[in-house]
Every structure is written in C-alpha cells, then in structure tokens.
C-alpha cells in the first residue's frame, strides 16, 4: 500500500547540482579571460573521466546507471577538481585525480550521499602529494607573460608535453601568488617589497584575484537562490579574515593582509562551492558554523606555517573527519523541549 504524501514539490538533485554548476560559470569565464582556454580542456577531460568512472562503478555494483549519471554530482566534483589544479597539468594527472576521487572517495562508500570526505578535495590531496612539482606550474596571466599561447599549443602541451619551439616551461608558468609570497617570506623579504613584484595586482595575484571575484559572484547567486545557507561561507570567510587579521596586526611585515587571503588561492571557491557540499558538511546550523570556523583557522595555519601553498583542501578534509561528531553534539532542541514552552 503506498504511503502518503502523494504530492511533492518539483525539485530534484540534478536541478540543484545544475544550478551550482551554472554558478561556477562566472569564475570559469574570468579564468579563461585571464589565463587562456587551457582550463576548459582540463574541465572537459575531468568531466568525461568522472562520468566514465561513475558508470563503470555503477555497472560493477549492478546499479541502474541512468538516474545517477544524470544527477550531475559527478560533474560538479570533476569541475571543482579541475579548477583547483594547474590548467596546464598533464592529462594523466587530471584523469588519475578524478578517477581516484569518484571511485575511491565516493563509490567505495556506497555512492552519492555516504562519502565522509569531499571527493574533489581527496582528488586534489592525492595529486598534490603524488606530483608536487607539476602542481606548481600555474599559468601566468597574459598581461604578465606577454606570450599569447594559442589553444593548439596548450592542447599540444597537455596531451604530449611539447611546447612551441622557443618557449621554456618556466617562461609561461609561475607559482601561485600564495606560493611566491611564502617562498619570498622565507627568504626574509618583507611583505611590502614582495607586493611590489609584477605578479601582484591590487588585492592578490593579478589574474587569480579576478577569478576569485567571479567565484564570489557565483556564490552569492547560490546564496540568494537558497541552494546554500549563509552559515558556511560567512563563517569560513570571517574566520579566515579574523585569524589572518590578528597575525597581520601583530606583524604586518611578515603576515599578509586578510583581503589578500580572501582573494588568493582557493578561499572563495572553497567558501561557496567546496565547503558547502551538503553530503560532507554538518546538517545543523551550529554545526555548520563550527565546521566553517575550523576550516578557516586551519586554512590560515597551513598557508602561513604549513608545508603546502594552499591549505583549503587539507582544511576541508580535516574538518570532514569531524563532521559526524559535530553533528552528534550539535543537535538542536526539539519542538516543545526548549524549556519554558513559551
């Protein structure tokens, strides 16, 4: 006998995920505008791998493939992973990262909804630990390098590692703004003269600050269409701002301004797209704030003192470990049991 309710609000997981993918478009557009179309190659490559791996895993587990492929969750993981690794990363890196993310971090735990770790970040962590060198070859924005790599050259490099005749890899790539900042600081330079270097724009790295703004716009769109709630992004950015602010006030020469941290690395895309993955973030309001504040502080610590250039991925994974516990201990009071009854 069917159980009530017999009517439902027209909404589906694939619609939600589609909206999140659309929200990524502004960021990607700016990315292509500043760094050339290479990122599109790795995004499509990652998407194809993700869908192929998902289909294979579902086949192995005798599950119908259609409903899962069309729910766009694998696509979202692929896009987030592609956006957090260098655009000129060789093709096998993208494939390995995405395949590991979808197969191990998602389907080994039972597919959609049961994975404790954010698949995109697991993919990133695996890549940065296995291929640290490749992960530092980020594209320099056109304005800086003055070299206009055609799309064919980029394709050529990604698939068979060949560069046009006169260019060397170092000419067209550089470390991220964060990475350069960290290495220079270790060499004892002060923040001011580091900021004078050509790669820095007004807020952070020349191209990457605009891309961060693009993701922020996409994030605000998600916020206003109530796909995500304010708790995670606001708490995360506030925590990052506060910790970096304290260190900056204590020693402005050695610790960069909070705005720099906001608009560099994966902070913006993390706050609005990576942390807010519903499956791997807490469900209670209080829990979301604890989770985001923890991630913010860890991101700053790893960026300032850790061994990796950007702490966003590891901060997310470390806080993902705590999510079940956070959920258990932040259960809100139930109707009528809030005391007083008024």
């Amino acid at each position, binding site marked *: 006998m069917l159980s009530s309710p017999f009517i439902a609000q027209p909404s589906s997981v694939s619609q939600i995920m589609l909206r999140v993918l659309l929200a990524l478009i502004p960021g990607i557009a700016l990315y292509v505008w500043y760094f050339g179309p290479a990122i599109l190659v790795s995004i499509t490559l990652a998407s194809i791998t993700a869908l192929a791996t998902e289909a294979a895993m579902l086949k192995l587990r005798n*599950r*119908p493939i259609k409903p899962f492929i069309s729910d766009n969750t694998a696509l979202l993981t692929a896009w987030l992973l592609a956006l957090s690794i260098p655009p000129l990363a060789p093709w096998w890196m993208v494939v390995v990262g995405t395949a590991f993310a979808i197969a191990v971090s998602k389907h080994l735990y039972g597919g959609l909804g049961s994975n404790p770790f954010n698949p995109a970040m697991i993919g990133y962590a695996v890549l940065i630990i296995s291929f640290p060198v490749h992960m530092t070859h980020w594209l320099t924005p056109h304005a800086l390098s003055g070299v206009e790599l055609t799309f064919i050259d980029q394709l050529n490099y990604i698939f068979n590692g060949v560069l046009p005749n006169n260019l060397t890899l170092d000419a067209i790539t550089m470390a991220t703004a964060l990475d350069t900042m960290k290495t220079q600081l270790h060499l004892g330079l002060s923040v001011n003269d580091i900021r004078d270097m050509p790669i820095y724009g007004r807020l952070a790295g020349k191209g990457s600050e605009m891309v961060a703004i693009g993701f922020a716009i996409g994030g605000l769109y998600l916020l206003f269409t109530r796909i995500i709630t304010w708790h995670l992004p606001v708490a995360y950015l506030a925590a990052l701002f506060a910790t970096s602010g304290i260190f900056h006030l204590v020693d402005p020469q050695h610790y960069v301004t909070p705005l720099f941290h906001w608009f560099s690395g994966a902070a913006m895309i993390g706050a609005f797209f990576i942390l807010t993955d519903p499956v791997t973030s807490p469900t209670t309001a209080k829990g979301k704030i604890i989770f985001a504040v923890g991630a913010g502080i860890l991101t700053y610590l790893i960026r300032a003192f850790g061994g990796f250039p950007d702490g966003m991925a590891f901060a997310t994974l470390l806080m993902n470990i705590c999510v079940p516990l956070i959920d258990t201990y932040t259960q809100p009071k139930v109707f009528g049991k809030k005391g007083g009854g008024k």
Partner: protein
Amino acid sequence: MISALWVMIGISLLLGAVLGYSSIKFKVEGNPLVEKIDAVLPQTQCGQCGYPGCKPYAEAIAKGETSINKCPPGGEEGIQKLADLLGVEFQPFGEGAAPKGKAVAFIDEQTCIGCTLCIQACPVDAIVGAAKQMHTIIASECTGCELCLPPCPVDCITMQAIGENITNWKWRHPVIIPIKAAA
C-alpha cells in the same frame, strides 16, 4: 650485572605492592552481566539452546561456556544485541537453528484425554485444566516453546502460526522504487 637484578626486583616488588593493595580495595562481587543477558533473551524458556531455560543459558553465556547464536526465538537481532552487549563479533545461526515464525500452541478438544502431562511440561503455566478435565491453552500467555508437544500421549496439540491482523500489522521497509537493477 648485580645492579640490573636489583633494579628489576625493586620495580617488580613496588608494582606487586601497589597491585595487591588495589585488588583488595577494588574488590568487585557478583557479576551483573547475567541479568543484562537475561533481559535480552526472549524468555520463551524453550530449551532449544540446550539449557533448561533462559536464565541458565544467560549464566552459561556470562561464564563464556557457550556461544551466543543458540537462541532461535531471539532471532538474528537477539544475537546482534548479545554481540553488542558482550563486545564480541556477531555470529550467524548454526545450521538447523534458524528461527521459525511466531506460533501459539492449540489443544484439539475432541482428542484431549485430560492427562495433565502438558500442564506439568509448560514452563509458563499457560495451560488451564485438571486431571480428567478438559485442557486448553491461554493463547496470550503461550510463548510458543513447543515443550508441550512431546509429552502429549494423544498428540492433540498443534502449533498455529499467529496471522497478521489489523492490530499487529506493520509497515513494510520501503523498497525504494527499483533503484537496484536486476543482478
């Protein structure tokens, strides 16, 4: 070499003293575990576990003499509860000990000769009757342990499964509309 001996003997004497003192202070009497295990068992007193009732089986488990998968009326869930309580691994039922559906004994009053053998056998006094008088089973009290079947000389007791009626009907586990393709 000698000093090494002294050191080791010193340490062990010191530890021995501390442990001796604390074992007296932390004396624990009785084993509250038996009641906890007995609380989990279904109390059918049917003896299918090889012990004359649930309490003896509980004591045997507490003493570790027997395994926890010998109680068919308890079902898989009973074993799971015992496994959680004792912190041991879940063991499925051995062969032939699989649980049967719940049933209640019923005396066919045409053939009952009033010999009271079943009354003496019933562990929970669920059979009403006296010598040479008609016997009948109180359905609500019968635990379905089938101990009254063997002693009956005229074999007039049968086990009747408890059907599904509107009061004990249960919602089914919702099989999500065929998400699992055929294997």
